[in-house]
């Protein structure tokens, strides 16, 4: 792209790919995440269903985070169809039971059970999620749902693409969740059981 001629850019030409991530709003660090959350226009956001998952102690505590970040990434990626916040809520129910720091796993962390590998990818300016990245997020930060939820939702959008590449069509919400769990192509009994659990939580959220 063309930019004003300067000492740094005597040709007046620069590579958009390198600059994109330096423009405010195209990457998220801790303070930017906090700022987006505090200043987000809440008037039109779609909130996940409230008061349906009574067997989880903190089920509704993260509704606002889920609503804002789902809306944020739906807009960022111009998602069609948009991601349903109830999918995110049912996913969190199945991943962590809404516990912010589930201890019983050494390979994934926080409420959205993000792995170190995923954290690396979503922060890699040259990686598979380079079109929108996070920065300066440490593994220990994943214990904070204000950090873990936006990363989990960003990862869902990436998984939508990887699932589509495998299926050669857009995934439905169940296939998306299986891809998030890394089980889309799995033939295990566990896959069926885990999907059954997710399906039940999602159905409860959608029940009138």
């Amino acid at each position, binding site marked *: 792209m063309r930019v004003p001629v300067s000492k740094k850019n005597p040709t007046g030409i620069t590579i958009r790919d390198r600059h994109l991530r330096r423009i405010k709003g195209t990457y998220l660090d801790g303070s930017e995440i906090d700022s987006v959350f505090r200043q987000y226009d809440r008037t039109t956001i779609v909130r996940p269903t409230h008061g*349906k*998952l*009574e*067997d*989880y*102690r903190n089920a509704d505590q993260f509704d606002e985070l889920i609503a804002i970040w789902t809306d944020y990434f739906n807009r960022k990626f111009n998602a069609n169809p948009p991601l349903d916040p109830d999918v995110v809520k049912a996913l969190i*129910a*199945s*991943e*962590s*039971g809404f*516990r912010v720091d*589930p*201890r*019983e*796993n*050494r*390979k*994934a962390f926080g409420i959205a*059970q993000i*792995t170190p*590998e995923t954290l690396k990818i979503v922060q890699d300016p040259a990686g598979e999620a380079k079109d929108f990245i996070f920065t300066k997020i440490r593994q220990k930060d994943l214990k904070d749902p204000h950090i873990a939820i936006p990363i989990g939702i960003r990862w869902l959008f990436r998984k939508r693409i990887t699932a589509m590449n495998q299926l050669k069509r857009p995934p439905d919400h169940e296939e998306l969740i299986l891809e998030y*769990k*890394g*089980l*889309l*192509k*799995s*033939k*295990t*009994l*566990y*896959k069926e*059981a*885990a999907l*059954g*659990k*997710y399906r*039940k*939580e999602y159905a*409860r959220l959608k029940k009138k």
Partner: protein
Amino acid sequence: MRVSKRSSLVCFLIFLAGCATSSYQLIRSGERGTELIVSPDRVLLECEPLLDADEKGLSGFMMHVLDEENTVLTLVQGNTLDTDSCHRRMKKMSEILRTGKTIFIGGTGDLGEPRRKGRAHVFPRKGTFYGNGRVLGFAVITNEFGACFDAYSGDEKPCPREPFI
């Protein structure tokens, strides 16, 4: 003949005792989850290796429970676990089952859906039974001596936690 009659009687009594101790009781099942009290012989633990998952070294934890109609319901840990963590929890839960006679199990979700025949499960002291397609989220297991294991915080106190108190 006399010895034979006596040994038959002893076998019968053991059989009766076995029957008496094998139990399944549904305490509640609804919007606030499902609670069961069962004898340990009705519980089967499984860490299924997820060899075809995207990431290596993962296992899926499941607990199979033989119900009142001798069909098998499954409680599942929704997140995949590293294989070491899965086997470590199996060991701790096996101890709960070994030392207890009355096992309390808490799960998320209800048992409202109709049964449908699934995979066969072998319960060492009971035999082979088929899955009924019913799935709950695993939440907690505890015995009458207070030994307890929570799906997401292990044996860390408090255990069990709300709403399974």
